[in-house]
């Protein structure tokens, strides 16, 4: 499964400045593992020491927040868009 991953500004040091990169994987966890192979260091920014999504990272597969789905086990269909976004934005 090939997906397009939208990279937030603070992670673009790992992708050579690219805002969007391709990755392989049938689940979000596999996609992040593939990202790590291609862009070493990126997984440690997104995942905590226990390998879970950090609490201030939001990830969307297409339009769905993976926290409402199956987290890292969320399926990533071929051609899906994955968006990694800092969670600290917004609000009052």
């Amino acid at each position, binding site marked *: 499964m090939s997906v397009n991953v939208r990279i937030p500004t603070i992670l673009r040091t790992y992708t050579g400045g690219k805002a969007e990169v391709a990755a392989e994987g049938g689940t979000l966890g596999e996609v992040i593992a593939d990202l790590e192979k291609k862009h070493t260091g990126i997984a440690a920014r997104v995942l905590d020491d226990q390998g879970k999504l950090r609490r*201030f990272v*939001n990830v969307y597969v297409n339009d769905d927040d993976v*926290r409402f789905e199956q987290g890292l086990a969320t399926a990533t269909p071929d051609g899906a868009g994955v*968006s990694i976004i800092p*969670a600290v*934005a*917004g*609000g*009052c």
Partner: protein
Amino acid sequence: MAVQTVETSPATGATAATGTPAVDFGPASGLSCRECGTRFELGPIFACAECFGPLEVAYDLPLGDPEALRKKIESGPANIWRYAPLLPVPADVADKPNLNPGWTKLVKADNLAREIGVEPGKLFVKDDSGNPTHSFKDRVVAQALEAARAFGFTTLSCSSTGNLAGAVGAAAARAGFRSCVFIPHDLEQGKVVMAAVYGGELVGIEGNYDDVNRFCSELIGDPLGEGWGFVNVNLRPYYGEGSKTLAYEICEQLGWVLPDQLVIPIASGSQLTKIDKGLKELIALGLVEDKPYKIFGAQAEGCSPVSAAFKAGQDVVRPQKPNTIAKSLAIGNPADGPYVLDIARRTGGAVEDVDDQQVVDAIKLLARTEGIFAETAGGVTVGVTRKLVEAGLIDPALTTVVLNTGDGLKTLDAVAETSQASATIKPSLEAFRSAGLAG
């Protein structure tokens, strides 16, 4: 006056450079990650590059001579800029074009106190509907505007549940910025009009606030958003500091005394955390005597992720899909939720919620007892206050300050159905007598 560093963040770690600000940020010394403590230079950034944690402003505050500082503040303007020595703004900030918000009324609410079982003289409403665009958002936008000026942005933007859009539009108009703000497409008409009237671009997004917020977060990383200052995204560390002025004002208006209990609405949770930060700064500066205080958070039941986590004893806030009339608080994925939990537990407070009917009842209760017409967020805080008093969690003998953060004219729909004319009569004394309203 001696200068020392006061930080409310964890110990600092490595320093990461992000650019040099073009102008003076007053006592602000840098940005610090609230999660891991990594330090950054002042810049238009909001998330930690190490752990994605929220960045907040660290200061070299003017410690050492509280009496001189108190006099300086008291002789300042009757707006938030009286606290300029404690904010990330230049000393001459009051001379720049902005809306000069703040110094709103702290109303002694004896009538309301009697109704909900609090000792008269002990209950106060901090009525922030008195700000220029009728909500507390003018405070935070004023800070973000100064940061936008400093970083050379020319467009001011935000994701908004309505109040912020109006505050950004108005501030941009006054300061000569372009504005382009984003809101959920189904907001209350009053808030749409109040945001559009200032002449900037207003864009409705098909989705809820969390969808709008996601959109703005993506826009900021795209060339389309280049040169834009999003007050609650890339300017969020500065923006949030505006809420500290609520803490400063409440204490000064109480005679430089800490309140014992505060009831604060929770949307993202930023306001509550910054009020706590402000209270701690006042203690560190010696402007108030240190004593325990309790902070209570208030949510609407239809969007109560923080309240649910508090009641379940959890540290993690599970996002919810909002469904409440309190749209200004309808953030299902609150960025500062975990910190709200920490503060409520640390201070011995709580987080509670009320349903939509209780919100409406509380709006009308505040209106008929104190003559204050609150928006739905004010109904949430008053409703939660009543609930917490009944539950014995708020001590009726201690000073309690309840926040009203916006004007009821913005959310007329909430009470329109049950707030109509008592009678419609012909213009005659007989008709009036017959209506039985002569008292």
